[in-house]
């Protein structure tokens, strides 16, 4: 799948703080939409109130869970990107008039969904690179239309399932049962439970 914003996001120093600024979030989200759907191929519209609602809901979740960043910072970055994706699905600010004719499989199956994923994945990958000098590879199945079809159906039932889906793309252990519970994430549970060996 395409991640058109990564180069631009990489140019932002300290993205993990910048992304908590509403104006930056709005601007970079719109830019990602522009790059995902170049003019002529499709027409897209972003509802500002819905976009802001998704940001505010994400912010609330971020503040409520940020204490867990101390347990596993890398996992918390993935979780935060996942909750941002879940809120984008929940508020659904983007509408695309027609399916992209010459996009990748994700854009063809689900243009709005692929724009949300490419944005949040781009943010997560850039922050991971800036913070840990990590460059994660996107798995091959991210280009499989069946995966996108299944993802679409699942997220329409429960937007929080976007969190483990993004974990999979980032190579992080997912929690499919209670996706929005940060304390129940495998990485957090592993590091916060007392070691049995000692």
């Amino acid at each position, binding site marked *: 799948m395409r991640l058109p914003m990564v180069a631009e996001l990489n140019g932002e120093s300290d993205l993990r703080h910048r992304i908590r600024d*509403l104006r930056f979030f709005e601007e970079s989200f719109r830019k990602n939409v522009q790059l995902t759907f170049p003019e002529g191929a499709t027409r897209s519209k972003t509802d500002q*109130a819905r976009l802001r609602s998704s940001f*505010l809901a994400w912010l609330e979740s971020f*503040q409520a869970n940020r204490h867990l960043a101390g347990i596993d910072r890398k996992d918390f970055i993935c979780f935060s990107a996942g909750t941002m994706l879940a809120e984008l699905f929940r508020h659904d600010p983007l509408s695309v008039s027609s399916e992209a004719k010459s996009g990748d499989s994700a854009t063809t199956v689900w243009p709005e969904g692929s724009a949300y994923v490419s944005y949040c994945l781009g943010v997560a990958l850039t922050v991971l690179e800036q913070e840990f000098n990590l460059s994660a590879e996107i798995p091959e199945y991210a280009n499989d239309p069946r995966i996108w079809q299944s993802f679409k159906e699942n997220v329409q039932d429960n937007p929080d399932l976007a969190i483990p889906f993004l974990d999979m793309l980032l190579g992080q252990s997912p929690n499919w049962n209670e996706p929005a519970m940060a304390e129940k994430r495998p990485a957090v549970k592993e590091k916060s439970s007392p070691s049995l060996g000692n």
Partner: protein
Amino acid sequence: MMPKRQRFPIPPTADDIAAAPLVVKDALRGIRRKLRNISPEITESGLSGQNSSLLSPLAIATALFNETRKITSFGEDIARDILFRHRDEARLAAFGAAGFGRPRQKLSEGHRHNFVASRYAALKILARQLGADDQLILEQPIDTTYLRLLARFSDVSSASPSQNELNFDKIAISAIELEKSGAIQHPKSDHQTPHRAQLIFAALGLAETILNLSTIHTVESTLAALNLAADVIVLRKPSIAAIFDGFDPEAQLSAEFRLLAPPLTEA
């Protein structure tokens, strides 16, 4: 026996004397609003085409009233748009600094005036933005609230451990006290939860917090903060309703400002 001559009551304190012009201004606002809302029984259209010699004295008076009102409101609108815009902008420039969020060595009479005038100007903008442009906004209750806040914060500010930090609690308390003051009357017909005045004052506090976190203090940045705060508060309606109906609105509103203001502040 001749009745005793009535004496005009002497205002008991200097604060009451200072507030007197605001009382007069508010009274005039109330009269102007009542005049706007009067709807004489005979409409202009009802008079058209009639011979003036057939009109009753009441119809003539009504026609005269309508014409006079049209001319005065037209003149008033022009005056407000052209002349008062600059005055309102000057008032707005003081909005961010005229609150209680940042500690101050000594609060002058100028601070009191700036607090009242800037909040009045800001409330007019927020009321318009939140679809309540016909709402009557009064200055004297803002002034009374200022004095109450001054008394309430006098012992707190000296005991505060972090002298230079922004005090979210004081901004939240100010917003809630202003809402209770009656500066914007809550119409009985407004059964929404939260009601519009609550949204307006929550937005006022949020805008003040944004400006206090920012280093840019211009009329433009104040207008931008007010507009953004109004937009965001509308999106947070359920939280605002829960805050005003909740157990400790002051603490909860303070937490809301702490959550929302930093991401809304221009870097």
